[in-house]
């Protein structure tokens, strides 16, 4: 049993190559998963690695370090297209969770209700994966494969989330529906990003979470919105329904989720334009 908190990413990668430590960042998912008072097994704490935290603007993309905390995102100066991400950050658990939890952790935990995923999907985000063997990147939509399942390979770490500049146009909004205000797992949530010309939707990026095993984009609905008025548009509810596979659980039934998703989508789009 060991606990490592390296300062350098190369040291972290070497540790990952040498064994299979559990990667620890904000701890907001690892600790709730155990009844023990300490994490068992080998732990690799990546929060000491400065290179993994923070937001930089370079080479045609915005790079968000995987260990960037929700509260860092809230405080960051980012284009309007990131408003949805910031709003989602404000709705993750509580201030306490936002001060500890990280964007990379949220993605790797791969909950169907991960608050960060829909806002990143509408930004066409990709994840950067590094290992001692090298780098690769995957679209976020391909990285998360199911409930609690990702394409992270042994020896790999998510080092950053990358948002192409092309996807930072327009404005965005995010709505989360839950049975209470704080500390709540969503029944459904929606992120939307729109570009408009004189009140007409030029492009739309839409995503719904908590209504399928992995949050989804809605390409058919996005296409249907193009050319419609931002003030008065029709959402093809059947196309929304086809994209979702909601379940019955303690928070809501599947039928409600499907219906609420359409309503939330409408409100989120209306919320994009102030």
């Amino acid at each position, binding site marked *: 049993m060991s*606990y490592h908190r390296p300062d350098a990413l190369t040291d972290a990668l070497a540790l990952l190559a040498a064994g299979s430590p559990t990667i620890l960042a904000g701890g907001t998912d690892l600790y709730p998963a155990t009844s023990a008072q300490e994490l068992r097994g080998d732990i690799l704490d990546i929060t000491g690695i400065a290179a993994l935290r923070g937001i930089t603007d370079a080479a045609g993309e915005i790079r968000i370090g995987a260990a960037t905390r929700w509260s860092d995102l809230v405080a960051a100066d980012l284009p309007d297209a990131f408003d949805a991400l910031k709003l989602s950050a404000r709705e993750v658990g509580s201030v306490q969770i936002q001060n500890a939890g990280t964007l990379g952790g949220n993605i790797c935990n791969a909950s169907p209700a991960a608050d960060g995923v829909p806002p990143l999907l509408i930004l066409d985000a990709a994840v950067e994966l590094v290992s001692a063997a090298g780098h690769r990147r995957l679209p976020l939509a391909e990285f998360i494969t199911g409930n609690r399942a990702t394409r992270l390979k042994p020896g790999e770490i998510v080092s950053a989330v990358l948002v192409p500049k092309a996807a930072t146009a327009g404005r965005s909004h995010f709505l989360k529906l839950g049975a209470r205000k704080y500390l709540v797992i969503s029944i459904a949530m929606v992120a939307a990003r729109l570009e408009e010309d004189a009140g007409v939707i030029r492009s739309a990026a839409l995503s719904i979470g908590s209504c399928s095993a992995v949050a989804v984009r809605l390409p058919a609905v996005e296409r249907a919105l193009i050319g419609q008025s931002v003030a008065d548009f029709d959402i093809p509810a059947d196309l929304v329904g086809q994209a979702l596979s909601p379940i019955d659980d303690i928070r809501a*039934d599947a039928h*409600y989720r499907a219906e609420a998703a359409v309503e939330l989508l409408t409100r989120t789009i209306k919320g994009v334009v102030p």
Partner: protein
Amino acid sequence: MSLDAAPSIITVNGTALEIRANPGRRLSDALREELGLRGTKVGCDAGDCGACTVLLDGAPVCACLTPVGQALGRSLQTVEGLGAAAELSLKRAFARFGAAQCGICTPGMLMSAVALLRHVAKPTRAQAEDAIGGVLCRCTGYTKIIDAICDAWRDAEPVAMPPAGQSIGAAIERLDGVAKIDGTEVFGADYWPQDALRVVVLRSPHWHADFEFGDVAAWAEARAVQVFTAKDIPGKNCFGVIPPLADQPALAEAVARFRGEAVALVAGDAAVMRDLDLEGFPVVWTPRAHALSVDEGKAAAPIHAARPGNLLITGRVTCGDVAALDGAAHHVTGGVETAYVEHAYIEPEAGAAWMDGDVLVIQACTQAPVMDRDDTAVVLGLPSARVRIVPSAAGGGFGSKLDVSLQPLIGLVTLLTGRPCRMVYSRRDSMVSTTKRHPGQMTATIGCDAAGKLVGMRFDGDFNTGAYASWGPTVANRVPVHASGPYLMPNYLAEARAIHTNGPVSGAFRGFGVPQAAICQETLFDELAQKAGLDRLEFRLHNALRDGDVTPTGQALHGVGIADCLEALRPHWADAQEWAAQADGRGIGIASCWYGCGNTSLPNPSTIRLGITGAGQLVLHQGATDIGQGANTVVTQICADALGARVSDFELIGPDTGLTPDCGKTSASRQTYVTGKAAELAGLALRAEVLRRTNMGEDAAICFEDGAVVIRRGAQSERLDLGDGIWVEETYDPPTTALDENGQGTPYAVYGYGAQLVKLEVDLALGKVRVDHIVAAHDVGRAINPVLATGQIEGGIAQGLGLALMEEYVPGRTENLHDYLIPTSGDMPRIDSILIEKPDPVGPFGAKGLGEHVLIPTAPAILNAIRHATGARVTRLPALPHRVLAAMKAARHD
């Protein structure tokens, strides 16, 4: 670098301290166990409650989610480090406003507020609400916490202590408040003797199963621990709050009847226990058929052989001739189904045990020290005199800490090993093993005449009482007494049954079934008022019990304040109607309550000892456990005025079964009334004795002056000869009578009354409900301490709101505080409390109970407002968004 080598240096509250803890250890555990900084509380170990909030580089984080390794080299502040001027001012505001009730969330609240106040000196209510959004409070309803945060900048003077004889009615700060706000209060998990063994429980993972142990001795030896099972229990392995129906083993024998039932204990040294994994414990389970719902329970083989049909008990009250309903001009019939509701106090059960000579001492959180003593003594085969219960501060109780939990378990380990031991329930332990509010399936028919006067009511309810009896009989008896509501009901038949299942044990939860029954009755009242063409408030007022009216049990009541409560709401009702008309989705609702204070037709005496020591110290032996509601303060205020002394003259002793006489359990809204009455009698008796000894007249003043007691009357002055001290002891037991086979009799000597008005908005497309404002009028007889009283109202409303809108304990599925939702600071409406003081002829200084009354009207008033807003009749609780939306659709199709 690897951090698990040598001890590390951690800087806490500006001081560098050496800490020996693995860097992967939870910071909360390291602070508490290694550094002794126990002001940081642990409620869930999952970031769901925020009780462990500390500031790391000034930012609030949950210490339970923070590895020690991440706190090294950073600035860490805990509640013990709050000393700056603004921080002290905040703490004083918490005291002034009564923002700490039980106090378990207070450190987390303070730390969250400090982080806000460093950036915003004069926050708005919205900012304060947002800052504490991550800290759950189950007592206060958050209102007074937000009041305190917003007013902290003012640094006002503490509330002045009233002069002798003027304590009653004074909003004095709670007498036990300082420790709660400093973080020095000792809760169940906060004290243990050195070298205490740690104890954990092995629980059944099955609803219903036979089990056999394998080679437990070898398993234990390999791990350097000790294991205890039912066969080690020296006494009678059976406890229960109602002795004739006691049926619950401390450790199950051969069969476990519910998921979470304790089957074995493992005890060992702290270092061993920290790494212990119960996986692989040698036990073989053979699951049996199980029943979870009432309907399944009725059809299943008896869970207890002597209870066919799994019927534990039936309660029944009838008067007049319920057939008169047939002739009523208007009728309504309907049913409601409620969920298991979890108490969700922020303090999981915890305590320690040790031997003091041949006396077993147990210090743990509880609401009922003498019952704990007696139950534990039976299980351990000891005379009661050899068990001493020292209640720790209780971090919330609400009924569940009336039943023993870990007391017989840690008692057993200490008794058999001779060593001190301690146990702290995990949040999961607490949720799976302790009692719940009874799920109720209720139907009723109510009728009135053409003028809207009630003709009669028929009520029938099945209550899922789970695997063991606990307080099921109390629920079955209380419900038929109260199901009519505080109205004149000439013809009545009510029956309630407690049915066993393999679900969680249902026990006491603030209101003993009455809140569920009130949901059924008060929602039907709205429909009946509509049929009769009467305004909903006026319909209730028209039928409200008045002085001299007779209840369905045949009891004539006096000091009845329900009409006063409804009348007090009238102007608000008119305003609310205007408000509701202004926008779609707005609705208003109203509901009433009544509630008998004290045990139902059973003795429940309280005894107070009061005296003056030889050194001139006034001492009150106060045996009523204060679980946050304020008994320490209220009982003292009553005693002070009866005696004619100042509250500040008193020293409080207890509760402690080794030191204080029995003041009964803290339940049934009885402490202000019953223990308060005993305190009044004791105060009067001591006063009489002092005046007799000094031969002074009735109107003399008793003055406590630096070790001397001086009696003054006009120009006369006499120093009391104290000798070895002067002591009195007085007992009060409410004058009740047994109920006959028709439920006729005097079940309670005192009732309290209330009515609440709710304004809310329903999101018409999503079915989500936002409660905007509640006006609550409660007849308390006499408000002994108005701040404590309004604190009870606000906290009760929070629980009522949770019951109505979000709380549903699903066995096996919601055993944590992120799947089981209770209201956060962002879910609470503005609350205006109106204290009605219609004196009770029996209660001390006219006072009535309040603690349970306050949540009864909230849920039905919310449901009535939802119906008003949307037409939706939600009949299955909680009214989650999907249920509201479905009910709205159903209403449209009606």
